[in-house]
């Protein structure tokens, strides 16, 4: 190369220079497939591991993320069959509570819902992860600092008629709630919501507390 490599990683500089200079000769511009390949090369060259944030988090994303990203970028939603297949695969991966207990302590659930900590490269590896719930959802009506990316969960259990979460009639709602938190993509292939259990963000015990926050009649969410 005649121009100085200023600060780029060697692999990136070479890879991209070849790819881009090859493309620039072509007046019609790169094809979609070429751009997709170029994107992979750029991602690989641009990101690096920092503390617990390993580079594999972007170089080895799963099929669900890959297909949803492609759909988002193209502006065309996934076809029905692909969406169903993604949902089925994610549903299969849900781990149900090992002891059959779905509900924990809503007070601890509130703390987890409030916390946005964990898993960034500046968080200590031993920091307990938060649920980030309030970043996107309204929950306890007393908390006015809530986000609106997800739907309001005000009165979540009450409006679904859950008066006794341990009763047989409540079972489908209780299970859905657990499943949605554990792996949101089981119910909506390209949901914006993280897969808290599936991706190891929250522990089984933490998910139990969040379920309680949403479904316990004593929880402020249902008051």
């Amino acid at each position, binding site marked *: 190369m005649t121009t100085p490599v200023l600060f780029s990683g060697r692999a990136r500089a070479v890879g991209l220079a070849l790819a881009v200079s090859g493309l620039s000769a072509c007046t019609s511009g790169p094809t979609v497939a070429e751009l997709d390949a170029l994107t992979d090369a750029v991602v690989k060259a641009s990101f690096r591991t920092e503390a617990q944030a390993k580079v594999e988090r972007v170089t080895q994303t799963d099929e669900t993320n890959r297909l949803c990203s492609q759909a988002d970028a193209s502006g065309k939603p996934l076809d029905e069959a692909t969406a169903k297949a993604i949902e089925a695969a994610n549903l299969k991966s849900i781990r149900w509570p090992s002891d059959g207990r779905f509900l924990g302590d809503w007070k601890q659930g509130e703390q987890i819902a409030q*916390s*946005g*900590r*964990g898993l*960034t490269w*500046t*968080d200590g590896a031993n920091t307990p992860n*938060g649920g*980030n719930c309030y*970043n996107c959802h309204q929950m306890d009506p007393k908390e006015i*600092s809530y*986000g609106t990316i997800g739907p309001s969960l005000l009165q979540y259990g009450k409006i679904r008629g859950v008066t006794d979460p341990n009763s047989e009639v409540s079972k489908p709602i209780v299970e859905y709630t657990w499943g949605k938190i554990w792996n949101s993509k089981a119910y909506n292939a390209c949901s914006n919501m993280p897969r808290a259990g599936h991706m190891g963000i929250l522990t089984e015990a933490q998910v139990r507390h969040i379920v309680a926050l949403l479904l316990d009649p004593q929880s402020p969410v249902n008051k």
Partner: protein
Amino acid sequence: MQNRRETLRQSAVVAGLLASTGLFPQWAHAAFNKAAFETKTVLDAVKAYGPGSITESKDVTITGPDIAENGAVVPIGASTTLPGVKQLLLLVEKNPSTLVAMFNVTDSIDATIATRAKMGQSSDVFAVAIMADGRALFAKKEIKVTLGGCGG
């Protein structure tokens, strides 16, 4: 408006000259009252400047937002229309030390000053005017502190 580049160039020259000739202002005008800045209550902070009590007054004004998105920077101000004000104090009741700033007011300025404070939590914020006759008059206002998005 003043040309900033010129201002800066002038400033640097002036600073240099003064540094070399020892003409920095007399700090005696504002000898730092360390004790006042270690007090834990509004009254104790005022006492450090003389007055033994404080009285609420409509003639003193505290300005600030009702809610501060971030406690690291909270715009607050103190003013009074009363003649004979000697000092203006700004205080945040629930900070580890209450006193934020004290201004010695002369006849050459309006008794109106504004700055920005740090607030550790929601708190009453006080403006106190210490008068030439020794009275200390105050106004207070609650400022709520919250934080916006919080990704960790």
